[in-house]
């Protein structure tokens, strides 16, 4: 898969270079409805990401698709040329345009895609 990197300021106030693959590409490979298929009822799909410690964050599927959003959300595996350290890795989400890093979830363990129910 294609490696992508983002230079962003983290919680520590310092700029870091995160490298990994685009989250959308992984979803695509897993058969999730992206791109042209992301319309109609598929627009009520959400992506629930859970960390090893149980922390959870949620994205709308469309937010992750660069055809909708003006950013590429990363599933990072490296920081400044090193594998992500324990407690942060092996996978971390980097959403460069989120002003607060609260959804830059560390220690990603599961990604669930589902239809929102009302």
């Amino acid at each position, binding site marked *: 898969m294609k490696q992508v990197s983002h230079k962003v300021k983290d919680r520590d106030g310092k700029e870091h270079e995160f490298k990994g693959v685009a989250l959308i590409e992984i979803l695509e490979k897993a058969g999730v409805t992206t791109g042209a298929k992301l319309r109609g009822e598929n627009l009520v799909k959400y992506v629930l990401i859970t960390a090893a*410690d*149980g*922390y959870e*964050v949620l994205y709308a599927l469309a937010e992750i698709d660069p055809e909708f959003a003006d950013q590429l959300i990363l599933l990072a595996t490296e920081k400044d040329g090193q594998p992500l*350290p*324990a407690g942060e890795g092996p996978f971390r989400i980097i959403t460069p345009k989120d002003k607060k890093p609260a959804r*830059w979830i*560390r220690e990603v*363990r599961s990604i669930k895609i589902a239809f929102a129910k009302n």
Partner: protein
Amino acid sequence: MSGRRKVLTKYKLGGSGWIVTILSATFCVFAGMVSVTHKAPVPYELKYPANFGSRFTIPADNPTTQEGVYLGRMLFYEKRLSANNKLSCESCHEQKRAFTDGRPVSMGVDGSFTPRSSMSLANLLWVRNFFWDGRSQSLEAQAAFPLTDPHEMGQTLAESVKKLQKTAPYPALFQGAFGETGITEQNILKALAQFERTLISADSPYDRYMAGRYQPTETELRGMQLFENGPDPRRGIRGANCGHCHGGPKTFKELFHNNGLDSAFTDPGREKVTAQSMDKGRFRVPTLRNILLTAPYMHDGRFKTIESVLDHYSEHIQQSATLSSFLQDISNEEGGKSLSLAPQEKQDIIAFLGMLTDSAFMTNPAFTNPHSISKAQQHARNQDIQQQIFPVRSTPVRPHNAYVRANRGYTNCLRRSSHAARTQSAGLGIHEASQP
């Protein structure tokens, strides 16, 4: 089916943040076919402050009812549920200690000790993964563990069913709560779970503070700041960062962390559940509500006093591969390796923890042992237990479907008002969790 009616009323009591929802559930009258009316259970109204949020699920097949809760309470204090008739849930979960037992580990029917320390049973309604390692996903499933574990109550559910069938007033109580199915293994678990959901502790000075009805002392206020703040010596901010894991109005976030007790682990904790080495030594973050009454502390009860807990976080965090990153390299001294709280700061935090003591919870008559009533009363009660304890309903009610429906409305109505409550009491600990 005809005559269906649904009333859902919401009251907000003057600024208190409490929401009382009265559920007059759907009344289903069966036209024509009713000759014998079986009295159906009455929905139980769970009350809690809006800032606790409504992220909880009550299984659709076990709605909370007055009869179910009362039966659950009877069972919670019932020693016949143990192999030697000497232990009940209370043996390890005493109300006066916020439902803990004051011991590092507890003794079961066979005289051996539980591998871990008993846990407080407050605000279980919001817990999604039970036990120190989160191995059980519902209160219904959880209850089977202590009942049948040979080192706890040590009796099969089948045996418990047999004993209860022979013991008044249980046949009547089970009928009242569950109708025709009566005394079954599942119904024992369901009733216990219903009672446990009502164990809500939400009237501490901290709750009153969040509702604008309590003025903390100087030391409590300093403790609250330290509890919430992460330390940042360069900007002159002192803190203990407790809120990162124990934050929010419920004083726990449902997270699993290694909080640095050991560098080598005799108890693997969460790893045993997930089989992932990254989870070695992680345990569930427990609530700190009523914490000053629940010593000794931690999953193995290693700390006898709250002071030693503060010393632990301040000076004795043990390094290991899975130590929580939120406890690494955080210090009140520039370049420091430990939190390094001053003695007065530890006292301040303890003063704040004292604000989490909800005295009414420890004396709430709805949670006390219901067996301690006289023989005469017992007899009278056996005649018609329902009539005495619960309000009599003349309309035949079918609560199961009805309650689920009503309950959904209830949840929605809380969700709507919780935002208002949040903005209203924008004090400490109300903000959302943020991980990094």
